Protein backbone atom coordinates (compact mmCIF):
# COMPACT_ATOMS: atom_id res chain seq x y z
CA UNK A 1 0.00 0.00 0.00
CA UNK A 2 2.81 2.37 0.86
CA UNK A 3 4.38 2.01 -2.57
CA UNK A 4 1.04 2.98 -4.16
CA UNK A 5 0.94 6.14 -2.08
CA UNK A 6 4.37 7.15 -3.37
CA UNK A 7 3.46 6.36 -6.97
CA UNK A 8 0.22 8.34 -6.86
CA UNK A 9 1.66 11.32 -4.99
CA UNK A 10 4.67 11.52 -7.33
CA UNK A 11 2.36 11.38 -10.34
CA UNK A 12 0.04 13.99 -8.83
CA UNK A 13 2.91 16.39 -8.25
CA UNK A 14 4.47 15.70 -11.65
CA UNK A 15 1.24 16.17 -13.60
CA UNK A 16 0.34 19.20 -11.50
CA UNK A 17 3.68 20.79 -12.36
CA UNK A 18 3.18 20.01 -16.04
CA UNK A 19 -0.15 21.84 -15.99
CA UNK A 20 1.48 25.19 -15.31
CA UNK A 21 5.09 24.61 -16.25
CA UNK A 22 5.33 22.40 -19.30
CA UNK A 23 8.68 22.82 -21.07
CA UNK A 24 7.52 20.98 -24.19
CA UNK A 25 4.30 22.72 -25.03
CA UNK A 26 2.49 25.93 -24.26
CA UNK A 27 -0.75 24.49 -25.53
CA UNK A 28 -3.66 25.18 -23.12
CA UNK A 29 -5.35 21.92 -24.16
CA UNK A 30 -2.27 20.00 -23.02
CA UNK A 31 -2.40 21.82 -19.70
CA UNK A 32 -6.06 20.92 -19.28
CA UNK A 33 -5.36 17.28 -20.06
CA UNK A 34 -2.58 17.16 -17.48
CA UNK A 35 -5.04 18.66 -15.00
CA UNK A 36 -7.31 15.68 -15.73
CA UNK A 37 -4.41 13.31 -15.00
CA UNK A 38 -3.63 15.20 -11.78
CA UNK A 39 -7.21 14.78 -10.62
CA UNK A 40 -7.30 11.09 -11.48
CA UNK A 41 -4.09 10.54 -9.48
CA UNK A 42 -5.56 12.52 -6.58
CA UNK A 43 -8.62 10.33 -6.56
CA UNK A 44 -6.22 7.40 -6.38
CA UNK A 45 -4.89 8.96 -3.16
CA UNK A 46 -8.45 9.24 -1.83
CA UNK A 47 -8.98 5.55 -2.55
CA UNK A 48 -5.86 4.73 -0.52
CA UNK A 49 -7.43 6.69 2.36
CA UNK A 50 -10.56 4.51 1.92
CA UNK A 51 -12.58 7.61 0.98
CA UNK A 52 -14.25 5.97 -2.01
CA UNK A 53 -17.07 8.47 -2.21
CA UNK A 54 -14.69 11.41 -2.43
CA UNK A 55 -12.58 9.56 -5.00
CA UNK A 56 -15.56 8.91 -7.25
CA UNK A 57 -16.93 12.43 -6.89
CA UNK A 58 -13.51 13.87 -7.61
CA UNK A 59 -13.48 12.16 -11.00
CA UNK A 60 -17.16 12.71 -11.68
CA UNK A 61 -17.20 16.44 -10.95
CA UNK A 62 -13.73 17.68 -11.77
CA UNK A 63 -12.43 15.36 -14.47
CA UNK A 64 -15.84 14.66 -15.95
CA UNK A 65 -17.47 18.06 -15.95
CA UNK A 66 -15.35 21.02 -14.89
CA UNK A 67 -12.37 20.35 -17.11
CA UNK A 68 -14.57 19.42 -20.06
CA UNK A 69 -15.97 22.93 -19.72
CA UNK A 70 -12.40 24.26 -19.56
CA UNK A 71 -11.67 22.46 -22.83
CA UNK A 72 -14.91 23.76 -24.27
CA UNK A 73 -13.89 27.34 -23.57
CA UNK A 74 -10.29 26.84 -24.69
CA UNK A 75 -11.45 25.40 -27.99
CA UNK A 76 -13.85 28.27 -28.59
CA UNK A 77 -11.16 30.87 -27.92
CA UNK A 78 -8.20 31.50 -30.13
CA UNK A 79 -5.41 29.51 -28.54
CA UNK A 80 -2.70 30.26 -31.09
CA UNK A 81 -1.99 33.52 -29.32
CA UNK A 82 -1.72 31.78 -25.98
CA UNK A 83 0.69 29.26 -27.43
CA UNK A 84 3.10 31.94 -28.57
CA UNK A 85 3.13 33.63 -25.19
CA UNK A 86 6.16 32.96 -23.01
CA UNK A 87 6.17 32.87 -19.23
CA UNK A 88 5.14 36.22 -17.91
CA UNK A 89 7.10 37.80 -15.06
CA UNK A 90 4.07 39.15 -13.23
CA UNK A 91 2.17 35.87 -13.44
CA UNK A 92 5.18 33.89 -12.30
CA UNK A 93 5.66 36.23 -9.34
CA UNK A 94 2.01 36.02 -8.26
CA UNK A 95 2.00 32.26 -8.65
CA UNK A 96 5.16 31.88 -6.61
CA UNK A 97 3.72 34.11 -3.89
CA UNK A 98 0.52 32.04 -3.72
CA UNK A 99 2.48 28.80 -3.56
CA UNK A 100 4.73 30.20 -0.84
CA UNK A 101 1.69 31.25 1.22
CA UNK A 102 0.04 27.86 0.92
CA UNK A 103 3.31 26.10 1.68
CA UNK A 104 3.68 28.24 4.82
CA UNK A 105 0.22 27.26 6.08
CA UNK A 106 0.91 23.61 5.31
CA UNK A 107 4.30 23.56 7.02
CA UNK A 108 3.07 25.31 10.17
CA UNK A 109 0.08 22.96 10.40
CA UNK A 110 2.24 19.90 10.04
CA UNK A 111 4.79 21.24 12.54
CA UNK A 112 2.13 22.06 15.14
CA UNK A 113 0.29 18.78 15.02
CA UNK A 114 1.45 15.62 16.70
CA UNK A 115 1.02 12.21 15.12
CA UNK A 116 -2.37 10.60 15.76
CA UNK A 117 -3.87 13.77 17.15
CA UNK A 118 -7.04 15.16 15.57
CA UNK A 119 -7.23 12.30 13.10
CA UNK A 120 -10.50 12.05 11.24
CA UNK A 121 -12.83 9.14 11.84
CA UNK A 122 -11.93 6.13 9.74
CA UNK A 123 -15.03 6.23 7.60
CA UNK A 124 -15.40 9.99 7.14
CA UNK A 125 -15.03 9.59 3.39
CA UNK A 126 -17.90 7.12 3.11
CA UNK A 127 -21.21 8.22 1.64
CA UNK A 128 -23.41 8.04 4.75
CA UNK A 129 -21.10 9.59 7.37
CA UNK A 130 -20.24 12.36 4.91
CA UNK A 131 -23.90 13.09 4.20
CA UNK A 132 -24.74 13.09 7.90
CA UNK A 133 -21.89 15.49 8.67
CA UNK A 134 -22.93 17.81 5.86
CA UNK A 135 -26.50 18.00 7.12
CA UNK A 136 -25.72 18.30 10.84
CA UNK A 137 -22.38 19.82 11.88
CA UNK A 138 -21.65 21.63 8.65
CA UNK A 139 -25.12 22.54 7.47
CA UNK A 140 -24.52 26.31 7.57
CA UNK A 141 -21.25 26.34 5.58
CA UNK A 142 -22.81 23.84 3.18
CA UNK A 143 -25.83 26.06 2.55
CA UNK A 144 -23.66 29.17 2.23
CA UNK A 145 -21.50 27.47 -0.39
CA UNK A 146 -24.56 26.35 -2.32
CA UNK A 147 -25.91 29.91 -2.22
CA UNK A 148 -22.55 31.16 -3.48
CA UNK A 149 -22.72 28.74 -6.39
CA UNK A 150 -26.27 29.82 -7.14
CA UNK A 151 -25.19 33.47 -7.23
CA UNK A 152 -22.34 32.58 -9.59
CA UNK A 153 -24.74 30.69 -11.82
CA UNK A 154 -27.33 33.46 -11.98
CA UNK A 155 -24.55 35.97 -12.64
CA UNK A 156 -23.24 33.86 -15.50
CA UNK A 157 -26.63 33.61 -17.13
CA UNK A 158 -27.22 37.33 -16.72
CA UNK A 159 -23.85 38.24 -18.25
CA UNK A 160 -24.07 35.84 -21.18
CA UNK A 161 -27.64 36.69 -22.07
CA UNK A 162 -27.91 39.02 -25.02
CA UNK A 163 -29.96 42.17 -24.30
CA UNK A 164 -33.65 41.52 -24.76
CA UNK A 165 -34.74 42.19 -28.34
CA UNK A 166 -38.33 42.19 -29.56
CA UNK A 167 -40.35 39.02 -29.47
CA UNK A 168 -38.53 35.73 -29.75
CA UNK A 169 -39.49 33.94 -32.90
CA UNK A 170 -40.58 30.40 -32.32
Amino acid at each position, binding site marked *: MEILFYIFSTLTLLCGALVVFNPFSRNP*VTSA*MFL*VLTIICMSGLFVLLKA*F*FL*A*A*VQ*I*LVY*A*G*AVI*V*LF*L*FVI*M*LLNIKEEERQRFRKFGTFLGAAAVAGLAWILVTTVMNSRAGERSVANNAG*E*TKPLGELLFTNYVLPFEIVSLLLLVAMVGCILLSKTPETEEETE
Partner: protein
Amino acid sequence: MTDWFTSLTPNEQFAIFSLLKIMIAVFTVVLPMVAYSVVAERRISALIQDRIGPNRVGPFGLLQPAADGLKFILKEDFTPAYARKVYFWLAPAVAMVPALLTLAVIPFGSQLGSQKAVIADLNVGILFTFGIVSLSVYGIVLAGYASNSKYPFLGGIRSSAQMISYEIAMGLSVVPVFMLVGDLNLSAVIDYQKSGAWLILKQPIAFVIFLVAAFAETNRLPFDMPEAESELVGGYHTEYSSMKFALFFLGEYAAMIAVSAMMVVLFLGGWTLPFAGLNETATSLGMGLLQVGIFIGKLLLFMGLFIWVRWMLPRFRYDQLMDIGWKRFVPLAIANIVVTAIYLYLTHGK
Protein backbone atom coordinates in the same frame (compact mmCIF):
# COMPACT_ATOMS: atom_id res chain seq x y z
CA MET B 1 -2.66 -27.29 -9.36
CA THR B 2 -5.18 -27.12 -6.52
CA ASP B 3 -2.39 -27.50 -3.95
CA TRP B 4 -0.61 -24.57 -5.44
CA PHE B 5 -3.81 -22.55 -5.50
CA THR B 6 -4.85 -23.19 -1.89
CA SER B 7 -1.35 -22.28 -0.74
CA LEU B 8 -1.90 -18.71 -1.93
CA THR B 9 -3.12 -15.99 0.42
CA PRO B 10 -6.78 -14.87 0.07
CA ASN B 11 -5.56 -11.62 -1.46
CA GLU B 12 -3.64 -13.43 -4.18
CA GLN B 13 -6.58 -15.73 -4.89
CA PHE B 14 -8.81 -12.68 -5.14
CA ALA B 15 -6.41 -11.07 -7.62
CA ILE B 16 -6.30 -14.20 -9.79
CA PHE B 17 -10.08 -14.58 -9.80
CA SER B 18 -10.52 -10.89 -10.65
CA LEU B 19 -8.10 -11.19 -13.56
CA LEU B 20 -9.93 -14.29 -14.78
CA LYS B 21 -13.28 -12.51 -14.58
CA ILE B 22 -11.91 -9.54 -16.49
CA MET B 23 -10.43 -11.74 -19.22
CA ILE B 24 -13.60 -13.81 -19.63
CA ALA B 25 -15.99 -10.87 -19.41
CA VAL B 26 -14.12 -8.62 -21.81
CA PHE B 27 -12.67 -11.00 -24.38
CA THR B 28 -15.29 -13.70 -24.62
CA VAL B 29 -18.45 -11.73 -23.85
CA VAL B 30 -18.21 -7.99 -24.40
CA LEU B 31 -15.99 -7.72 -27.46
CA PRO B 32 -17.84 -10.42 -29.47
CA MET B 33 -21.08 -8.77 -28.38
CA VAL B 34 -19.79 -5.45 -29.72
CA ALA B 35 -18.86 -7.06 -33.03
CA TYR B 36 -22.19 -8.83 -33.39
CA SER B 37 -24.26 -5.80 -32.41
CA VAL B 38 -22.77 -4.13 -35.49
CA VAL B 39 -24.04 -7.03 -37.61
CA ALA B 40 -27.37 -6.92 -35.82
CA GLU B 41 -27.61 -3.21 -36.49
CA ARG B 42 -27.02 -3.73 -40.20
CA ARG B 43 -29.42 -6.66 -40.48
CA ILE B 44 -32.19 -4.97 -38.49
CA SER B 45 -31.82 -1.70 -40.38
CA ALA B 46 -32.07 -3.70 -43.61
CA LEU B 47 -35.20 -5.39 -42.33
CA ILE B 48 -36.76 -2.03 -41.44
CA GLN B 49 -35.89 -0.49 -44.80
CA ASP B 50 -36.95 -3.58 -46.77
CA ARG B 51 -33.41 -4.47 -47.83
CA ILE B 52 -31.46 -7.69 -47.25
CA GLY B 53 -28.28 -6.50 -45.53
CA PRO B 54 -24.93 -8.32 -45.29
CA ASN B 55 -25.61 -12.05 -45.88
CA ARG B 56 -22.62 -13.18 -47.95
CA VAL B 57 -19.88 -13.91 -45.41
CA GLY B 58 -20.58 -17.21 -43.70
CA PRO B 59 -24.05 -18.56 -42.92
CA PHE B 60 -26.57 -15.68 -42.67
CA GLY B 61 -23.63 -13.26 -42.84
CA LEU B 62 -22.51 -14.30 -39.38
CA LEU B 63 -18.81 -14.06 -40.22
CA GLN B 64 -19.20 -10.43 -41.30
CA PRO B 65 -17.38 -9.07 -38.20
CA ALA B 66 -14.26 -11.07 -39.14
CA ALA B 67 -14.31 -9.64 -42.66
CA ASP B 68 -14.88 -6.12 -41.32
CA GLY B 69 -12.07 -6.49 -38.80
CA LEU B 70 -9.65 -7.71 -41.46
CA LYS B 71 -10.64 -4.83 -43.71
CA PHE B 72 -10.05 -2.27 -40.96
CA ILE B 73 -6.61 -3.69 -40.21
CA LEU B 74 -5.52 -3.79 -43.84
CA LYS B 75 -6.76 -0.32 -44.78
CA GLU B 76 -4.30 2.57 -44.92
CA ASP B 77 -4.00 4.35 -41.59
CA PHE B 78 -4.01 7.92 -42.80
CA THR B 79 -3.00 10.85 -40.60
CA PRO B 80 -3.71 14.32 -42.02
CA ALA B 81 -0.61 16.50 -42.18
CA TYR B 82 -2.18 19.32 -40.21
CA ALA B 83 -3.57 17.12 -37.42
CA ARG B 84 -2.21 17.40 -33.88
CA LYS B 85 -0.45 14.06 -33.85
CA VAL B 86 -0.38 13.16 -30.14
CA TYR B 87 -4.06 13.83 -29.55
CA PHE B 88 -4.95 12.28 -32.89
CA TRP B 89 -3.48 9.00 -31.67
CA LEU B 90 -4.76 9.33 -28.14
CA ALA B 91 -8.41 10.09 -28.92
CA PRO B 92 -9.56 6.68 -30.28
CA ALA B 93 -8.10 4.88 -27.26
CA VAL B 94 -9.69 7.34 -24.86
CA ALA B 95 -13.01 6.77 -26.63
CA MET B 96 -12.90 2.99 -26.19
CA VAL B 97 -11.52 2.55 -22.67
CA PRO B 98 -14.23 4.17 -20.45
CA ALA B 99 -16.99 2.01 -21.90
CA LEU B 100 -15.08 -1.15 -21.00
CA LEU B 101 -14.12 0.16 -17.54
CA THR B 102 -17.74 0.82 -16.64
CA LEU B 103 -18.52 -2.88 -16.87
CA ALA B 104 -16.19 -3.61 -13.93
CA VAL B 105 -18.83 -2.80 -11.31
CA ILE B 106 -21.85 -4.35 -13.05
CA PRO B 107 -23.11 -7.47 -11.23
CA PHE B 108 -23.81 -9.76 -14.17
CA GLY B 109 -24.97 -12.74 -12.08
CA SER B 110 -25.36 -13.81 -8.48
CA GLN B 111 -22.76 -16.44 -7.75
CA LEU B 112 -20.50 -18.61 -9.90
CA GLY B 113 -19.16 -21.41 -7.75
CA SER B 114 -17.71 -19.65 -4.73
CA GLN B 115 -17.15 -16.37 -6.56
CA LYS B 116 -19.48 -13.38 -6.73
CA ALA B 117 -20.33 -12.67 -10.34
CA VAL B 118 -19.08 -9.11 -10.37
CA ILE B 119 -15.55 -7.92 -11.06
CA ALA B 120 -15.38 -5.16 -8.46
CA ASP B 121 -18.07 -5.02 -5.78
CA LEU B 122 -17.56 -1.33 -4.95
CA ASN B 123 -19.72 0.31 -2.33
CA VAL B 124 -19.93 3.43 -4.48
CA GLY B 125 -20.60 1.43 -7.66
CA ILE B 126 -22.97 3.84 -9.30
CA LEU B 127 -20.74 6.87 -8.70
CA PHE B 128 -17.86 4.93 -10.22
CA THR B 129 -19.87 4.26 -13.38
CA PHE B 130 -20.97 7.87 -13.66
CA GLY B 131 -17.41 9.04 -13.11
CA ILE B 132 -16.07 6.79 -15.83
CA VAL B 133 -18.93 7.53 -18.23
CA SER B 134 -18.25 11.22 -17.76
CA LEU B 135 -14.66 10.61 -18.93
CA SER B 136 -15.85 9.20 -22.24
CA VAL B 137 -16.52 12.70 -23.55
CA TYR B 138 -12.76 13.27 -23.79
CA GLY B 139 -12.37 10.81 -26.64
CA ILE B 140 -14.78 12.78 -28.79
CA VAL B 141 -13.62 16.24 -27.75
CA LEU B 142 -9.97 15.35 -28.31
CA ALA B 143 -10.79 13.80 -31.69
CA GLY B 144 -12.53 16.99 -32.73
CA TYR B 145 -9.66 19.10 -31.52
CA ALA B 146 -6.86 16.91 -32.90
CA SER B 147 -8.31 16.70 -36.40
CA ASN B 148 -7.85 20.44 -36.69
CA SER B 149 -10.54 20.96 -39.28
CA LYS B 150 -14.02 22.42 -39.29
CA TYR B 151 -16.51 19.57 -39.17
CA PRO B 152 -14.76 17.42 -36.55
CA PHE B 153 -14.30 20.54 -34.46
CA LEU B 154 -18.01 21.36 -34.56
CA GLY B 155 -18.78 17.75 -33.71
CA GLY B 156 -16.44 17.87 -30.72
CA ILE B 157 -17.92 21.12 -29.40
CA ARG B 158 -21.45 19.81 -29.81
CA SER B 159 -20.71 16.56 -28.06
CA SER B 160 -19.08 18.19 -25.05
CA ALA B 161 -22.13 20.41 -24.54
CA GLN B 162 -24.56 17.58 -25.14
CA MET B 163 -22.89 15.00 -22.92
CA ILE B 164 -22.47 17.37 -19.99
CA SER B 165 -26.10 18.44 -20.24
CA TYR B 166 -27.47 14.93 -20.29
CA GLU B 167 -25.11 13.68 -17.62
CA ILE B 168 -26.94 15.98 -15.21
CA ALA B 169 -30.36 14.62 -16.17
CA MET B 170 -29.01 11.08 -15.99
CA GLY B 171 -27.38 11.57 -12.59
CA LEU B 172 -30.47 13.21 -11.12
CA SER B 173 -32.78 10.56 -12.53
CA VAL B 174 -31.16 7.73 -10.55
CA VAL B 175 -31.15 9.58 -7.22
CA PRO B 176 -34.71 8.40 -6.33
CA VAL B 177 -33.65 4.82 -7.05
CA PHE B 178 -30.94 5.04 -4.44
CA MET B 179 -33.22 6.85 -2.01
CA LEU B 180 -35.48 3.77 -2.14
CA VAL B 181 -32.62 1.28 -1.97
CA GLY B 182 -30.57 3.14 0.62
CA ASP B 183 -27.22 2.03 -0.79
CA LEU B 184 -24.97 3.05 -3.68
CA ASN B 185 -23.74 -0.49 -4.27
CA LEU B 186 -25.19 -2.02 -7.43
CA SER B 187 -25.46 -5.48 -5.85
CA ALA B 188 -27.63 -3.90 -3.15
CA VAL B 189 -29.89 -2.48 -5.85
CA ILE B 190 -30.47 -5.99 -7.15
CA ASP B 191 -31.02 -7.36 -3.62
CA TYR B 192 -33.71 -4.71 -3.18
CA GLN B 193 -35.44 -5.77 -6.40
CA LYS B 194 -35.19 -9.48 -5.51
CA SER B 195 -37.79 -9.19 -2.79
CA GLY B 196 -40.13 -6.63 -4.34
CA ALA B 197 -41.16 -5.28 -7.69
CA TRP B 198 -38.58 -4.17 -10.22
CA LEU B 199 -37.68 -0.52 -9.98
CA ILE B 200 -39.06 0.22 -13.43
CA LEU B 201 -42.52 -0.17 -11.86
CA LYS B 202 -41.70 1.93 -8.80
CA GLN B 203 -39.78 4.65 -10.64
CA PRO B 204 -41.14 4.83 -14.20
CA ILE B 205 -40.25 8.52 -14.58
CA ALA B 206 -36.68 7.89 -13.50
CA PHE B 207 -36.48 5.06 -16.04
CA VAL B 208 -37.75 7.19 -18.92
CA ILE B 209 -35.34 10.02 -18.14
CA PHE B 210 -32.45 7.60 -17.78
CA LEU B 211 -33.32 5.89 -21.06
CA VAL B 212 -33.47 9.15 -23.02
CA ALA B 213 -30.27 10.41 -21.40
CA ALA B 214 -28.63 7.09 -22.31
CA PHE B 215 -29.40 7.74 -25.97
CA ALA B 216 -27.86 11.19 -25.69
CA GLU B 217 -24.79 9.96 -23.79
CA THR B 218 -24.00 7.30 -26.37
CA ASN B 219 -24.56 9.72 -29.28
CA ARG B 220 -27.23 7.55 -30.82
CA LEU B 221 -30.07 8.75 -32.96
CA PRO B 222 -32.29 10.70 -32.31
CA PHE B 223 -29.48 12.54 -30.46
CA ASP B 224 -26.47 11.91 -32.70
CA MET B 225 -25.62 15.61 -33.16
CA PRO B 226 -21.83 15.08 -32.79
CA GLU B 227 -21.75 13.04 -35.98
CA ALA B 228 -24.85 14.25 -37.82
CA GLU B 229 -23.92 13.04 -41.30
CA SER B 230 -26.12 15.41 -43.24
CA GLU B 231 -24.62 18.53 -41.68
CA LEU B 232 -21.17 17.55 -40.33
CA VAL B 233 -20.00 14.91 -42.85
CA GLY B 234 -18.89 12.42 -40.17
CA GLY B 235 -18.59 14.73 -37.19
CA TYR B 236 -15.68 14.10 -34.87
CA HIS B 237 -14.38 11.07 -36.77
CA THR B 238 -14.37 12.65 -40.25
CA GLU B 239 -10.56 12.59 -40.46
CA TYR B 240 -10.12 9.10 -39.05
CA SER B 241 -9.54 5.99 -41.10
CA SER B 242 -8.68 2.34 -40.65
CA MET B 243 -8.40 0.89 -37.14
CA LYS B 244 -8.61 4.31 -35.47
CA PHE B 245 -12.05 4.83 -36.96
CA ALA B 246 -12.98 1.29 -35.96
CA LEU B 247 -12.13 2.10 -32.34
CA PHE B 248 -14.60 5.01 -32.33
CA PHE B 249 -17.18 2.82 -33.99
CA LEU B 250 -16.71 -0.07 -31.55
CA GLY B 251 -16.45 2.35 -28.63
CA GLU B 252 -19.96 3.56 -29.43
CA TYR B 253 -21.32 0.02 -29.26
CA ALA B 254 -19.34 -0.77 -26.12
CA ALA B 255 -20.86 2.34 -24.52
CA MET B 256 -24.30 1.12 -25.57
CA ILE B 257 -23.63 -2.21 -23.88
CA ALA B 258 -22.43 -0.41 -20.76
CA VAL B 259 -25.52 1.79 -20.39
CA SER B 260 -27.79 -1.14 -21.26
CA ALA B 261 -26.15 -3.14 -18.48
CA MET B 262 -26.67 -0.22 -16.10
CA MET B 263 -30.35 0.00 -17.03
CA VAL B 264 -30.81 -3.74 -16.53
CA VAL B 265 -29.26 -3.52 -13.08
CA LEU B 266 -31.02 -0.34 -11.99
CA PHE B 267 -34.50 -0.87 -13.36
CA LEU B 268 -35.01 -4.41 -14.61
CA GLY B 269 -33.82 -6.39 -11.62
CA GLY B 270 -30.43 -7.42 -13.00
CA TRP B 271 -30.01 -11.20 -13.17
CA THR B 272 -33.30 -11.99 -11.43
CA LEU B 273 -36.58 -13.29 -12.78
CA PRO B 274 -39.54 -13.34 -10.36
CA PHE B 275 -40.36 -17.06 -10.76
CA ALA B 276 -38.82 -20.55 -10.54
CA GLY B 277 -36.54 -19.44 -7.74
CA LEU B 278 -34.46 -17.41 -10.16
CA ASN B 279 -34.44 -14.38 -7.88
CA GLU B 280 -32.44 -16.19 -5.22
CA THR B 281 -28.66 -16.35 -5.07
CA ALA B 282 -27.56 -19.35 -7.11
CA THR B 283 -26.42 -22.42 -5.22
CA SER B 284 -25.14 -24.45 -8.18
CA LEU B 285 -22.89 -23.51 -11.06
CA GLY B 286 -25.60 -24.26 -13.65
CA MET B 287 -28.03 -21.94 -11.90
CA GLY B 288 -25.36 -19.23 -11.75
CA LEU B 289 -24.72 -19.55 -15.48
CA LEU B 290 -28.46 -19.45 -16.16
CA GLN B 291 -28.68 -16.16 -14.27
CA VAL B 292 -25.80 -14.75 -16.28
CA GLY B 293 -27.79 -15.81 -19.33
CA ILE B 294 -30.87 -13.97 -18.05
CA PHE B 295 -28.78 -10.87 -17.53
CA ILE B 296 -27.39 -11.03 -21.06
CA GLY B 297 -30.89 -11.63 -22.42
CA LYS B 298 -32.23 -8.49 -20.78
CA LEU B 299 -29.18 -6.61 -22.02
CA LEU B 300 -29.82 -7.73 -25.60
CA LEU B 301 -33.39 -6.45 -25.25
CA PHE B 302 -32.04 -2.95 -24.66
CA MET B 303 -29.52 -3.28 -27.48
CA GLY B 304 -32.41 -4.16 -29.77
CA LEU B 305 -34.27 -1.11 -28.55
CA PHE B 306 -31.27 1.11 -29.29
CA ILE B 307 -31.02 -0.23 -32.84
CA TRP B 308 -34.76 -0.14 -33.46
CA VAL B 309 -35.08 3.49 -32.31
CA ARG B 310 -32.18 4.55 -34.51
CA TRP B 311 -33.97 3.49 -37.68
CA MET B 312 -37.38 4.75 -36.62
CA LEU B 313 -36.88 8.32 -35.42
CA PRO B 314 -35.50 11.39 -37.21
CA ARG B 315 -32.75 13.50 -35.66
CA PHE B 316 -33.56 16.31 -33.24
CA ARG B 317 -32.43 19.86 -33.96
CA TYR B 318 -29.62 21.02 -31.69
CA ASP B 319 -31.62 23.72 -29.88
CA GLN B 320 -34.47 21.23 -29.34
CA LEU B 321 -31.98 18.81 -27.84
CA MET B 322 -30.73 21.39 -25.36
CA ASP B 323 -34.26 22.59 -24.58
CA ILE B 324 -35.59 19.15 -23.81
CA GLY B 325 -32.54 18.33 -21.70
CA TRP B 326 -32.43 21.43 -19.54
CA LYS B 327 -36.01 22.65 -19.49
CA ARG B 328 -37.87 19.34 -19.37
CA PHE B 329 -35.76 16.51 -18.03
CA VAL B 330 -33.74 18.28 -15.34
CA PRO B 331 -36.80 19.85 -13.64
CA LEU B 332 -38.72 16.60 -14.03
CA ALA B 333 -35.89 14.63 -12.44
CA ILE B 334 -35.69 17.08 -9.53
CA ALA B 335 -39.46 16.90 -9.05
CA ASN B 336 -39.16 13.13 -9.01
CA ILE B 337 -36.55 13.34 -6.25
CA VAL B 338 -38.75 15.64 -4.15
CA VAL B 339 -41.82 13.44 -4.60
CA THR B 340 -39.85 10.33 -3.66
CA ALA B 341 -38.44 12.11 -0.62
CA ILE B 342 -41.92 13.16 0.53
CA TYR B 343 -43.21 9.63 -0.02
CA LEU B 344 -40.36 8.15 1.98
CA TYR B 345 -40.88 10.69 4.76
CA LEU B 346 -44.57 9.86 5.00
CA THR B 347 -44.11 6.10 4.98
CA HIS B 348 -40.83 5.63 6.86
CA GLY B 349 -40.30 9.09 8.38
CA LYS B 350 -40.02 9.68 12.07
